[in-house]
C-alpha cells in the first residue's frame, strides 16, 4: 500500500466501513439482479455466482494496492449504480442477455478501478489524450454490450436491400437487407475483439522471443535475430497474402484450420517481428543490470530472470508499443477484410462492410463510410492515448 506520509497524517478520511458497506450493498444488488435474470436456469445462476465471486476477489485483492479515497469509492459505486439504472430501465433487453449484461458490468467496474488508480496522472492529461480515452472507452462499452445495444441480431435479414436512413432502420439496410446499425455495433465487437486477440498473441510470441534472445544471447539470439530480419524484409501485406493463399483449407491431422484462426496466427506471427525487435532491445539493456546478475548468482533459472527481473522493468515501452501494434493490426485486419481475404461473411466486420456496400458511395450515399470512419476514429483515439503515455513515461519531449 502506497500512502504518502502527508496523506497518512490527515485524519479527515471517512470511516472505511461506510464505503465497505456501500460496496457490499452494490454486490448484493448485483447478485439479486442476476438471480432474477436467470431464475429459470440453475446452471447459469451457479456460473454467474462463481463469476461474481471470482470477480469480487480480484477486485478486493486489487483494492489493497489502491490509493483509496472516498471520492474513488464514490466514483466506482456511482458508475455501477448508473449501469444498474440502465439495466432496470431497459429491463427486457438486459434480462434477455445476462452474459452481455455481466460483461458490461465488468467493463464498467474495471474502468472505474483503473480510473481511480491512475487519477493523479489522468488529471494532468491533455485534451487530446482525454478525447482518445473517451473514444476507446465508448468502443469498448459498445463491443462489450453489443447484443444489448443493437436493435436486431447480427446476421438477421430484416428488410429490403439498401433501405434509406430513418424509420425502423436508423441507418438503413445493407446489400442483403441487414440493419446497418446492428452490423456496425457487432462489427465493433468482432473487429476489435479479433485485433485484440491477434495483438496479444503477437506480444506473446514476440515478447517471449525477444526476452529469450536478450537473456540467452549467443546462437539463440543470432538465429532468432536473423529469422526476424528475413521476415521483416518482405512487406507484411504481401507476405500475408502469400501465406493466406497457400494455407487456406490447410489441415493438420485431418482437422481443417478455421479461417479465422489462420488469419489471427498469420497476422500475429508477422507482427511479432516488430515486438521482438523492441523486446530484445529493451531486454538487452536490462539483462546487464546488477540485480539481474545477482538473481543469476542466486541460482535463479531462465524463466525467473525473464518473468521476474526483465519483464516488470520492460513494461512501460511495451505497453506503449501494445497500443501502436493494436492500431497497426486493426488497420491491417481491416485492409485484408476490405480486400475480401480477412474476416469472412456473414460475420459483421467493418472492413468487409465497406467493401460490400462501396457502390453506394458512387450515388453520394455516405453510409459505407461509417465503418471506415469508425476504424479511423478508434485508431486516432488509441494513437492520442499512446502519444500521451509515451510522453509521460519516457519524458519524450522536443522542446529544446
Amino acid at each position, binding site marked *: 500500500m502506497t500512502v504518502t506520509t502527508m496523506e497518512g497524517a490527515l485524519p479527515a478520511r471517512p470511516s472505511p466501513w461506510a464505503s465497505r458497506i456501500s460496496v457490499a450493498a452494490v454486490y448484493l444488488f448485483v447478485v439479486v439482479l442476476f438471480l432474477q435474470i436467470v431464475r429459470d436456469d440453475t446452471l447459469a445462476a451457479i456460473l454467474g455466482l462463481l463469476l461474481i465471486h471470482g470477480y469480487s476477489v480480484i477486485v478486493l485483492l486489487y483494492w489493497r494496492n489502491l490509493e483509496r479515497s472516498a471520492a474513488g469509492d464514490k466514483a466506482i459505486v456511482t458508475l455501477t449504480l448508473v449501469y444498474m439504472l440502465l439495466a432496470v430501465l431497459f429491463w427486457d433487453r438486459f434480462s434477455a442477455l445476462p452474459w452481455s449484461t455481466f460483461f458490461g458490468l465488468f467493463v464498467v467496474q474495471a474502468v472505474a478501478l483503473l480510473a481511480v488508480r491512475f487519477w493523479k496522472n489522468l488529471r494532468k492529461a491533455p485534451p487530446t489524450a482525454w478525447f482518445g480515452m473517451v473514444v476507446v472507452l465508448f468502443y469498448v462499452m459498445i463491443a462489450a454490450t453489443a447484443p444489448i445495444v443493437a436493435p436486431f441480431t447480427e446476421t438477421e435479414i430484416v428488410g429490403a436491400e439498401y433501405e434509406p436512413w430513418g424509420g425502423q432502420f436508423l441507418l438503413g439496410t445493407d446489400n442483403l437487407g441487414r440493419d446497418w446499425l446492428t452490423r456496425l455495433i457487432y462489427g465493433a465487437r468482432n473487429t476489435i475483439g479479433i485485433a485484440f486477440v491477434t495483438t496479444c498473441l503477437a506480444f506473446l510470441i514476440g515478447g517471449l522471443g525477444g526476452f529469450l534472445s536478450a537473456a540467452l544471447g549467443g546462437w539463440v539470439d543470432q538465429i532468432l535475430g536473423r529469422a526476424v530480419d528475413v521476415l521483416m524484409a*518482405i512487406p507484411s501485406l504481401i507476405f500475408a497474402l502469400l501465406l493466406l*493463399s497457400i494455407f487456406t483449407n490447410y489441415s493438420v491431422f485431418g482437422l481443417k484450420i478455421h479461417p479465422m484462426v489462420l488469419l489471427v496466427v498469420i497476422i500475429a506471427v508477422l507482427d511479432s517481428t516488430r515486438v521482438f525487435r523492441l523486446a530484445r532491445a529493451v531486454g538487452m539493456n536490462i539483462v546487464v543490470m546488477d540485480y539481474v546478475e545477482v538473481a543469476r548468482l542466486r541460482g535463479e533459472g531462465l524463466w525467473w530472470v525473464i518473468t521476474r527481473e526483465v519483464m516488470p522493468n520492460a513494461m512501460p515501452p511495451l505497453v506503449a508499443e501494445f497500443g501502436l501494434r493494436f492500431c497497426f493490426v486493426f488497420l491491417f485486419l481491416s485492409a485484408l477484410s476490405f480486400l475480401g481475404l480477412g474476416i469472412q461473411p456473414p460475420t459483421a466486420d467493418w472492413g468487409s462492410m465497406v467493401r460490400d456496400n462501396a457502390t453506394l458511395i458512387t450515388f*453520394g450515399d455516405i453510409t459505407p463510410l461509417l465503418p471506415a470512419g469508425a476504424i479511423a476514429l478508434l485508431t*486516432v483515439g488509441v494513437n492520442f492515448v499512446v502519444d500521451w503515455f509515451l510522453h509521460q513515461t519516457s519524458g519524450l519531449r522536443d522542446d529544446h
Partner: protein
Amino acid sequence: MDKILKMVAQRLALGLLTLFVVSLIIFFSVQLLPGDVCQEILGQAQTPETVAACRRELRLNLPWYERYISWLFGILQGDMGRSLANQREISELIGKRLGNTFFLAAFAAVLSVPVALVLGVMAALYRNSPFDRIVNALTLSSISFPEFFVAYILILFFAVQLGWFPSISNVSADLGFWERIYRTALPSLTLMLVVVAHMMRMTRAAIINLLASPYIEMANLKGLTRMHIIVHHALPNALAPIINVVVINLAYLVVGVVIAEVVFVYPGLGQLLVDSVAKRDIPVVQASCMIFAATYILLNLTADVLAIATNPRLMHPR
C-alpha cells in the same frame, strides 16, 4: 573513401543474400502443404486435367533443387510460367500491370516528397506554434486512417459531388500522358495523403533533433535568422535521415498501392495479386510476391546505401 565503398559493398552483399533467402521462402512455403500439393491447392475444383496442368506448372516431376533453380532462373529471364486459372503466360499478365503500378507509385512520390519536406521544415521552423500543432494533429490522424477510408472520401468529394475526376481509373496503353495523369489523380492523391504524414513527421523530428546541437546555438548567437539557420545549417546535416525516410516511404508506396488499386479498379500488379490470392492461383501469387518483395528490398537497400553516402562524417573523414 575506402571505408564507404567497403560499407556499401557489405550492404549490397547483405541485400542480395536477403533477396535470395526471400526467394527461397516464397518458393518453398508452397511445398509445406501436406500430401499432393496440387490436389491441396485445387481442392474442390480439381479435375485430372487441372491437376496435371498444376503439376506441370509447379514442376513437380523435378527434384526440389532443380525445381527451385529453374523457377528462379525463369523469373530472372522474365519467364514465370503459366497461370493456373487461365493458362496464360504470367509474364504477359504481369508485364503491363507492373508498368502501371510503378507509374502510380512514381506519380504519388512526385506529389508527396516536396509537400512532406516543405511541411516538415515549416513545422520545425514554427515549432509549438498553432500551425505546428494543427499539422501534427492532422498527420497523426491521417496515419491512423485506413487507406480505403481516405480513398472513398476523395471519391465522394472529387468524383461524386464535384465531378472533377473519374472515380474509376481505367487506363490502357494507348492513353496520352496527361490523360493518364488525370485518371490516376485520385489514387495518387490517396497514396500521397497516406505517406506524407510519416515523411513530414520524420523530417520535423530530424531537424528539431539537430537544433539542439552547439553549432546551431552558435549560428543563433551570430544573429542569423531562423529560416537561414534551418535551411543552411540544419537541413544539410539532416539530409541523411530525411533521404532515408523518403526512400523507405517509396518502398512503402510500391506495396501500399494494393489497396488503392483495388478501390479505384486500377489495372496494376496489386489488383492481380489480390485476385490471384482469391483464386488460389499460386504461380501468379508467387511471381507477384517476388516482384513486390524484390522492389521493397532493393529500395530499402538504396535507403541504407544513401544513408551511408550522405553521412558527412563518413564522406569527409579526418
